[in-house]
């Protein structure tokens, strides 16, 4: 055994810090998820910023402007705004990284007990070193990967919860080596000597290889002894463990990829558009350079500009001329766009964080947007990939209903909720008091409290209360359910259990347990009852139970089936219960067979199954239980609304098929109008053929696809995956069950990479992290336990139902707002700078600017910076209520109706048109130097200031036309920008020349406003420009009316469309579904670890006192 090949191994010395330190000096348990450190900030930040085309371009422009004589504008007009933009971004980055540092610190500073020199010392997580022996207490997370030495439980057993690692919430059992299980005190822990040879750090969660060498003996270590960072100790008071890997080397952290930098599709397109604008810029510059070049032979240039004959024209002039034009037109690409966009996204994210509708009072958590750059992506989601446990369900199983001997009982107390022929649990409890031992109801409840593998634990504070450790949540629910009828399971001993019935302790001797597995779909316990009778209690799937009923045991079968179907249609998980009294002769003979089977070495499991088959016969059907896998609030409504919004929802769960389908039903994701396609074949061939077959048939009916993890493995292979995707996208809903975390991310990537659609993944556990990171948008549920998913996610919310508000409202708004913001920003700069281009035709392509430098710069950073911001911040094309009522409008998002090439081109054309009108009109109004009423003529800069006012008026009117909703801030931004200019112009004309900033403007300020024509000009030109847009917008509403228009009008006129009142509609559909469904499913579902339970529970004796470990 000792010569197991571990390969390149790590050697860890027990209780020998010096030696460990030699090897693992550099390994620390400190983790860091932050992006920057103090030192790396400048370098990393600049590298990231200058990976954006726009910033490189502006840097280039700023440098160009430093070349003497190239820049037509002041040499600092790009450098200063660029520096400002970078500074703002830097502040934002610092702020966001600070938050990451804070949360890292919180984790790194968690407390942990470390054994040092016979004593327990409390240290922080980041102090944990390889080789340390640590003590972890109940409900605490393991700080690093540990090898379990001993625990408070017998035989070094312990329970852990691994939901952060794999999303499974049922407890898992780990067991230390027998050789170390006696270490129950710090002293003992400090004494042990030896070494652990361990595998190199890797990311395989389910594998582990190691050897513990003590003295000259070596003992193999496998995953059973391994406690992983991220898991949590449950129902075990304490454990001792040796740290084998720390911090970044732990399997959990090896599994977590560095969060990828996500770019939204809008950002992608914006980048393309910037390149496109750069193209326009080049075209304009080249056109002007050619014009400049051609004009060199014109006599004006020769006679007036080059009066000295030695001034010859060279290639250098052409290049410098070209650069001049680049500088002149550089702001076609709006310098403020990127920073405005980021600022607005940040603001939107704050609004999301502050939304009361997404605040969950019970856990006192509000929604949190962690990646503000993704907000507009929320408005374009087409596929949602959802985890099940903890996301759709609360992860609470509740015993809700049962059918005993053909009589229905329900937990519900309210009379209105209880249907006809249904009795309440209270009634059942009363009936029980009078029942005889052999009555069905008595047997039924006895079965609940006896036939299981649950371990009870007396509560320390309240001795009458027992907590149950159940590796199957269903069993936990049943045992707890029995308490409702005063059947309290209190003690488990190796060979018996005690149930307290109405205050009386009854001891049942456990003779045999025939375990549950997925083939048998049932479990049985054979007990000797207090009255000496031997009974078999069986619970399991309806089909397997019905097969094994005695001829006279099926008297309640018909009514039970009816009830089962009813329960199933409500999405409840059902189990059938049956029993039989066994004569002692029969038991004796069977017991031999069983014992023989249990000692076989080969095929033991099969032999045991055969043995069980012999005794599980001629059963008497007692009835059925219905357990509710409690859905989170509002799940069905949310899913219905999201479906109406055109979003396709896929459930990816580690759970079993039955459970998954059940949840699908109960959350209305699948209904019974659907044809369910179920793939659970393991064969490659079967999968491939199955896929082809279904696609060929091309079913008309709405389809739902249920696919098993194993089949999925083949479906995801290169040859099949496109076919699989084709089929899956034909289906209305897809449920993937028993999938691994890796498969989850593969499914997401399959859709993401092959379909042009935005994907969203939502989950709560660490097992969802890979999928959350893979999807375009990752949403984490702030679950009850663990925040791993929420930390890795771009958004975190407390409840699945908040997705509704997040997507349909915040998402739609963000998408619409940012589309407007971006298109408008492009438009406003095009309009201004194209007038410069038209002007070039009238100034001999000399690169002369028509506007004064700083006016030009302030256009981007002052006068037109607020309208895009208010558009991004406040605009609501439809209000929240109507967006929620008419989710159909959400489709505009993923159909990219608001932001696409044609929208961009049309805004570009509008910019072109406006600039042409602006320049043509001002040229004609100006005529041959405008003459004022004193006969004085205006000069170039007055022309510039007039045109600038017109441009500003036009783009602000356009902003006004684009804004759907006006509030005081919006009004202030739009009107205020104009007023600001009108006020600042004369002031600037006075101060500018005074401080030598802009001598050009001297004398204009006090003159321009006295000219009547100036006022008439700045009125008519914007009106002419905007008249077309106004008319167009009106005509579109009148003659090409779309949903948005109608809903806006409904909102305005307060019209409600009763004919599509959803809740009513949904209820109707639900009813029809229910009827249809009855023939289909009986809702069996049961989750339980496969085998091994029976032996484990036999180790327990809950009457013994546990060691404290101190």
């Amino acid at each position, binding site marked *: 055994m000792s010569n197991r090949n571990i390969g390149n191994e790590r050697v860890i010395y027990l209780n020998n810090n010096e030696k460990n330190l030699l090897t693992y000096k550099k390994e620390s348990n400190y983790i860091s998820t932050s992006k920057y450190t103090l030192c790396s900030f400048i370098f990393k930040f600049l590298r990231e910023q200058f990976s954006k085309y726009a910033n490189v371009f502006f840097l280039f422009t700023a440098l160009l402007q430093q070349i003497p004589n190239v820049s037509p504008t002041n040499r600092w007009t790009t450098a200063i705004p660029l520096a400002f933009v970078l500074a703002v971004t830097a502040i934002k980055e610092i702020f966001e990284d600070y938050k990451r540092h804070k949360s890292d610190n919180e984790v790194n500073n968690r407390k942990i007990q470390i054994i040092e020199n016979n004593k327990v010392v409390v240290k922080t997580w980041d102090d944990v070193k390889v080789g340390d022996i640590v003590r972890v207490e109940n409900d605490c997370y393991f700080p690093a990967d540990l090898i379990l030495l001993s625990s408070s439980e017998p035989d070094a057993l312990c329970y852990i919860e691994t939901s952060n690692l794999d999303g499974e919430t049922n407890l898992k059992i780990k067991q230390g080596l027998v050789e170390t299980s006696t270490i129950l005190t710090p002293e003992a822990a400090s004494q042990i000597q030896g070494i652990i040879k361990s595998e190199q750090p890797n990311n395989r969660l389910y594998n582990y290889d190691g050897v513990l060498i003590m003295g000259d003996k070596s003992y193999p270590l496998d995953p059973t002894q391994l406690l992983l960072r991220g898991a949590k100790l449950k129902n075990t008071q304490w454990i001792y463990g040796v740290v084998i890997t720390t911090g970044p080397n732990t399997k959990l952290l090896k599994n977590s990829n560095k969060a990828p930098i996500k770019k939204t599709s809008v950002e992608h397109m914006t980048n393309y558009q910037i390149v496109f604008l750069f193209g326009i810029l080049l075209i304009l510059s080249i056109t002007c350079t050619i014009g400049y070049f051609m004009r060199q032979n014109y006599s004006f240039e020769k006679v007036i500009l080059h009066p000295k004959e030695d001034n010859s024209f060279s290639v250098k002039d052409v290049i410098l001329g070209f650069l001049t034009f680049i500088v002149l037109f550089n702001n076609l690409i709006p310098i403020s766009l990127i920073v405005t966009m980021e600022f607005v996204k940040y603001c939107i994210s704050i609004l999301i964080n502050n939304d009361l509708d997404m605040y969950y009072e019970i856990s006192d958590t509000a929604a949190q947007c962690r990646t503000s750059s993704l907000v507009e992506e929320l408005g374009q989601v087409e596929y949602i990939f959802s985890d099940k446990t903890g996301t759709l369900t609360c992860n609470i199983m509740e015993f809700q209903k049962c059918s005993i001997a053909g009589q229905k009982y329900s937990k519900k107390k309210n009379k209105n909720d209880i249907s006809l022929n249904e009795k309440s649990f209270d009634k059942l409890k009363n009936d029980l008091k009078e029942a005889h031992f052999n009555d069905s109801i008595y047997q039924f409840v006895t079965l609940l409290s006896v036939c299981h593998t649950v371990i009870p634990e007396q509560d320390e504070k309240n001795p009458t209360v027992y907590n149950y450790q159940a590796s199957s949540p269903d069993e936990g629910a049943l045992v707890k359910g029995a308490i409702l009828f005063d059947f309290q399971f209190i003690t488990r001993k190796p060979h018996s259990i005690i149930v307290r019935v109405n205050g009386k302790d009854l001891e049942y001797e456990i003779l045999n347990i025939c375990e549950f597995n997925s083939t048998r779909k049932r479990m049985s316990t054979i007990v000797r009852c207090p009255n000496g009778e031997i009974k078999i209690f069986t619970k399991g799937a309806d089909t397997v139970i019905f097969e094994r009923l005695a001829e006279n045991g099926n008297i309640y079968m018909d009514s039970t089936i009816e009830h089962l179907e009813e329960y199933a249609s409500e999405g409840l998980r059902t189990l059938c219960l049956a029993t039989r009294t066994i004569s002692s002769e029969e038991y004796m003979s069977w017991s031999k067979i069983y014992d023989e089977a249990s000692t076989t070495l080969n095929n033991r499991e099969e032999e045991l199954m055969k043995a069980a088959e012999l005794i599980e016969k001629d059963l008497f059907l007692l009835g059925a239980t219905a357990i509710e896998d409690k859905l989170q609030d509002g799940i069905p409504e949310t899913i219905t609304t999201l479906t109406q919004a055109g979003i396709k929802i896929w459930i990816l769960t580690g759970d079993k098929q039955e459970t998954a389908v059940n949840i699908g039903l109960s959350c209305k994701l699948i209904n019974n109008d659907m044809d369910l396609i179920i793939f659970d074949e393991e064969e490659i061939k079967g999968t491939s053929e199955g896929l082809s077959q279904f696609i060929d048939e091309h079913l008309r009916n709405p389809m739902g696809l249920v696919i098993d993890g194993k089949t999925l493995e083949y479906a995801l292979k290169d040859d099949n995956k496109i076919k699989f995707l084709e089929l899956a996208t034909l289906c209305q809903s897809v449920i993937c069950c028993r999938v691994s975390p890796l498969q989850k991310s593969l499914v997401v990537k399959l859709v993401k990479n092959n379909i042009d659609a935005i994907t969203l993944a939502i989950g709560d556990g660490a097992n969802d992290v890979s999928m959350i990171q893979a999807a375009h948008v990752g949403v984490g549920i702030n679950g009850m336990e663990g925040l791993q998913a929420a930390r890795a996610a771009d958004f975190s919310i407390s409840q699945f139902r908040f997705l509704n508000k997040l997507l349909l409202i915040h998402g739609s708004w963000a998408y619409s707002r940012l589309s407007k913001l971006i298109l408008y920003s492009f438009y406003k700069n095009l309009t201004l700078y194209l007038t410069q281009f038209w002007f070039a035709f009238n100034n001999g392509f000399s690169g002369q600017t028509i506007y004064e430098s700083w006016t030009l710069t302030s256009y981007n950073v002052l006068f037109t910076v607020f309208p895009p911001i208010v558009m991004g911040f406040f605009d609501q094309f439809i209000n929240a209520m109507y967006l929620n009522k008419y989710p159909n409008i959400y489709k505009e998002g993923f159909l990219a109706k608001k932001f696409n090439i044609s929208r961009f081109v049309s805004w570009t054309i509008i910019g072109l048109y406006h600039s042409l009108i602006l320049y043509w009109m001002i040229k004609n109004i100006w005529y041959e130097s405008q003459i004022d009423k004193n006969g004085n003529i205006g000069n170039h800069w007055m022309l510039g200031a007039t045109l600038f006012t017109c441009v500003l008026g036009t783009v602000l009117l356009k902003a006004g036309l684009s804004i759907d909703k006006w509030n005081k801030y919006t009004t202030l931004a739009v009107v205020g920008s104009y007023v600001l200019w009108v006020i600042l112009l004369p002031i600037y004309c006075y101060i500018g020349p005074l401080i030598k900033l802009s001598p050009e403007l001297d004398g204009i300020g006090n003159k321009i406003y006295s000219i009547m024509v100036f006022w008439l000009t700045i009125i008519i030109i914007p009106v002419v420009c905007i008249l077309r847009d106004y008319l167009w917008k009106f005509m579109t509403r009148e003659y090409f009316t779309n949903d948005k228009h*109608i809903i806006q009008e409904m909102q305005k006129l307060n019209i409600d469309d009763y004919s599509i009142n959803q809740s009513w509609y949904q209820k109707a559909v639900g009813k029809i579904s229910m009827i249809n469904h009855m023939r289909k499913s009986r809702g069996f579902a049961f989750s339980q670890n496969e085998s091994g339970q029976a032996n484990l529970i036999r180790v327990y004796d809950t009457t013994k006192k546990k060691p404290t470990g101190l």
Partner: protein
Amino acid sequence: MANKLGNRPADTAFKQQRLKSWQPLLTPKNVIPIFFIIGVIFLPIGIALYVSSESVKEIILDYTKCKYGGKPTLPIAAWNYDSQQNICTVNFEIFSEYKKPVFLYYRLTNFYQNHRDYFKSYMPKQLKSDKYYKDDISDCAPLDKSNGKQYYPCGLIANSFFSDEVIGSKLVREDSFEYEFSESGISWSSDKDKYKNMNVNQLTDEELKNLIPPPNWKKDFPQYKNGYTRENFPRLADMERFQVWMRVAGLPNFRKLYGQNKNGSLPKGRYSIQIIDRFDVESFGGTKSIIISNVSAFGGKNPFLGIGYVVVGSLSLLLGIIFLVKNMISPRKLGDTSYLSYKTQ
């Protein structure tokens, strides 16, 4: 309680995006009135502007080809050219009285005062200095210095100063009635601060020798043929025509004010004007004209703005009427839910 729900967002209209707001929709009910309002406001303004522009009297005398003789086109009745002294005499008729004030402009076409190379070639500090300006004047390139001597005033703008001269700055009627235009007051008031007369007496002989007139000045103005002396040194602060010239025009066809008469109206009659023709426009394909004009409250003659207002006003009215009629005949029902796309599908 407050402590327990510490993360609860504040319930303010701002944070919950419930700010009081107004959502204007472009429905016939508010669009049609707006068309009418624009029409009703713009049309009268347009008409007033047009009438006012038409009331401005203006005569344009293009004398570019005067030196070649030949038959001039109207409104020039006749011209003749004295090639000895390069004087062009233009005869024209004023048919009705020009109300005061009356202005005399010259107009150049195809002259790119707004050319960047031209535009930047001047040195405000030199113009403002009453002493010899010692610092760098390379801004004036290519006309900053010649053989170490400084052009005064330097730069392309100054060099190309319009050199034609209206003799006596006056119009002479057949009956010898003279109507004079004054140079004073034609530049902007702010120009006063931008120019200073050189304190000639303070200049050393060397400094004076170092200041030379721009090439065109030397060529065109007889007084500068031999350079500057203490007597003929240009007094920039008094040369308002020069200041007007230095205010660069925005477009390649432009007018500049040459003189004004605020005292009396210009009576009708046949007039002549004598211009010394020095400024070469043909070399760059331009033209030059003299314009006599008065102004209205809206400034010079330019019907464009008036027409613009009339067109926009009538178009708006027309649209308003069309939509009004349409809306009366077959109105669209607002918020008609039966047209929602998922219902019609």
